[in-house]
């Protein structure tokens, strides 16, 4: 067990890697009642072409299978099912899937060791049958339709689909009604055996716990389980061009004020910055360029080109950074022209960057008061960067205006795709 202090945040982080490869992180916070425990695999919707463990041939599995698998791990052959178990101990249990991670979790106040043992157990005891796989299709079909009726998520999913040509990040996490219809229990076992090995997984526990006791409990639990030797997972190599798949698309939906989404696809292969720095600079850039602090947004509102402030987000792959700007507008052509001109010409002053840095530094202190955000911070580092950053405060402190400009200079806005959502 290694202990490290997180500087400036009054927190310690305890860490251990077991023989089977499982990584454990514990951040005790004794002034709250809850314990938040997450058990994650670095496996998500994008991992749909790979060589199954102990085999030689590359296979492609139906879209949406990582999410389907997440639902189905809640089936148990014998004993209590997770929802029943956690209701009995007074804890909340849930799970979620993204394009690069699947997480199982509980939040509880008592019987923490029992709850943790059960979490580690139920995730490692798959029980898939033809019947229980069929039964789940009706439930997930409703989940997919729920997201399709939501202009926010539907627009975002369609934009990613049109920006990327080959990267499976373009497929919605839940797949489609058609793709999930093809899923069988054999597919589920293949994916499970390949991606749910402890060496591809990690546990993060934050809240009111004794770190030594809790790490010992995980060790004890894992000792009883048999795992084959860790193997390297072979995913299909993705060849993704810089051009977008489709430049424009219009969606007809139930929406009163039309909305335009613009996604700039930017190659970041030659950028001499590490991934964390790219993420930090990209967030700062979006905020300074398009947030309420920018004159751009306010001017467009005053001119009647957009209806309200812009919103923005980003998506990153190994090769590309996608900057997404969303506007409520009836004048999409005028808006798009202004936006294209603005991103190519506008510069950011060092005073603006330094104020934004103050925000980044403060955000780490805000985070340290919240066991859910601390937990997410660790999970995010494990999945996105495959390493921990123990001093987030210093990390932000060291960012320079010079490097920020290096980042901005590397941005090219030639390749973009738009989605226009309007009422049919």
């Amino acid at each position, binding site marked *: 067990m290694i202990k490290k202090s997180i500087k400036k945040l009054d927190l310690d982080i305890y860490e251990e890697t077991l023989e089977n490869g499982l990584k454990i992180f514990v951040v005790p916070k004794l002034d709250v*009642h809850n314990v938040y425990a997450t058990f994650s695999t670095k496996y998500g919707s994008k991992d749909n072409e790979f060589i199954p463990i102990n085999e030689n041939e590359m296979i492609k599995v139906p879209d949406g299978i990582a999410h389907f698998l997440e639902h189905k791990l809640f089936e148990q052959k014998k004993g209590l099912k997770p929802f029943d178990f956690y209701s009995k101990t*007074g804890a909340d249990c849930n799970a979620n899937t993204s394009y690069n991670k699947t997480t199982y979790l509980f939040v509880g*106040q008592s019987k923490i060791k029992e709850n943790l043992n059960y979490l580690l157990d139920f995730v490692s005891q798959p029980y898939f049958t033809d019947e229980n796989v069929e039964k789940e299709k*009706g439930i997930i079909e409703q989940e997919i339709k729920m997201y399709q009726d939501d202009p926010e998520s539907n627009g975002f999913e369609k934009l990613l689909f049109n920006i990327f040509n080959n990267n499976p990040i373009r497929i919605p996490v839940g797949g489609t009604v058609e793709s999930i219809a093809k899923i069988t229990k054999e597919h589920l076992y293949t994916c499970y055996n390949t991606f749910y090995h402890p060496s591809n997984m990690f546990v993060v526990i934050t809240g009111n716990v004794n770190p030594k006791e809790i790490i010992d409990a995980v060790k004890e639990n894992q000792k009883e389980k048999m795992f084959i030797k860790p193997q390297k997972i072979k995913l299909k190599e993705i060849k993704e061009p810089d051009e977008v798949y489709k430049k424009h698309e219009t969606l007809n939906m139930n929406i009163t*004020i039309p909305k335009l989404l613009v996604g700039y696809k930017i190659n970041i292969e030659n950028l001499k910055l590490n991934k964390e720095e790219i993420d930090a600079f990209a967030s700062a850039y979006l905020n300074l360029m398009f947030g309420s602090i920018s004159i751009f947004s306010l001017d467009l509102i005053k001119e009647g080109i957009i209806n309200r402030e812009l919103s923005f987000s980003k998506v990153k792959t190994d090769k590309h950074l996608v900057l997404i700007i969303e506007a409520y507008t009836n004048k999409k052509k005028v808006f798009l022209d202004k936006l294209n001109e603005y991103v190519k010409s506008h510069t950011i002053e060092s005073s603006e960057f330094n104020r934004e840095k103050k925000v980044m530094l403060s955000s780490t202190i805000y985070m340290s008061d919240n066991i859910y955000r601390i937990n997410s911070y660790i999970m995010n580092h494990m999945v996105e960067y495959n390493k921990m950053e123990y001093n987030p405060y210093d990390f932000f402190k060291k960012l320079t205006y010079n490097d920020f400009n290096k980042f901005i200079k590397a941005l090219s806005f030639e390749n973009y795709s738009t989605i226009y959502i309007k009422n049919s």
Partner: protein
Amino acid sequence: MNYQKIEKDNYNLHIINTSKFKTVKVCINFKEKIEKETITIRNFLSFLLINSSKKYKTLRDIEIETQELYNVGIKVDPYKSGNYHIMSFELTHLNEKYTEKGMNKKSLEFLLELIFNPNVTKNKFDSEMFNIIKSNIKDDIKSVKDNPGRYSLIELYSSISKGPLSYSNVGYLEDLKEIDEYTLYEYYKKMISNDWIDIFIIGDIDDSLVSLFDKYIKNQKKSKITDSHFLNIVPTKYKEKIKKVKYNQSQLAMALIPESLTEFERKYVMSLYSIILGGGTNSKLFQNVREKNSLCYSIGSNPSLISGIITIKAGIDASNYKKTVALIKKEIDDMKCNITTEELKQAKEMYISSCREINDSSDSIINNYLSFEYLNFDLVDERINNINKVKKKDIYDLAAKLVLDKIVLLEGVLEDD
């Protein structure tokens, strides 16, 4: 944690001193009897005030100041609370121990400037931000039915009552039309002097900070408000409303309305009833409608303690409407005579966990004192003590009084698009 209520001549101050958080949070509530005609103007005023002031004229000025003050959070939440309308202005900032000395005072001054020193000249608000907010609210009103789940609740509430329950949260176009820079300022003066003001402040703070309030809140006189927040809603005639909408999925919303409620039922039994029926993944609705019959992804029930109504919501396929309603009705019937000792015990544990959790965040601590102050609800320890007194018979008695009064289906007609 130490709670102190100070009754001033013109406002109530609630101070919660605790060193548990690295932040300080302030919540200033303006409360007035709800009227359908003033919801729009109160929303307008709320958003205008936090987007511009005499000292910070534009949104950019405000944003720059929030950054300078180490990322302070400012927000406003105008909301309906039964028979009242509340404009809640909130400030969250890092305690100066983590930033630099003087920041606690500067942050609080920032919020107070926005509320009490508006961008007014010659009895009118400045037009630039006024016009932006007006257009935003117009959009909000027009797009209120864009979200399927929210749309189904609007339909449900309007079928139950013509009173405050059914009033729009965002406002009305006909009222918006009447608002100009002058009438808004007239209303501002009225609100500042007539609304009941409660201020909540939580964090590791010293007394000198709260003296700032007196500097800003000067001439307002305190009006006496005695009416209860609770709405008196009773079952009327069973009604089913079906509307066709352009969605993939259909939205089902149902209302259970009690013939009467005792205070204990409203405070405790209703919550446990709703947890057992549809409060989580182990509830009767989730287990039977979703897990056993695969009819939906989301299903659940929610108690509104202010109106006494329990709403049930689910996203389903239109073709399964009758089957789903029949299954839900069966579970509602089960609540009258067939809950297990285990179900009751688990519901209590869930309730107690969420009570303990209240003390883990400054938001929920403030909310807890808010419902103590406004609704006469109990504080954490008493809640835990009382919930343990609820017996099966109490749930059955409540179940016998609950009438399934209204059903709304927004029927999705985009099937197999």
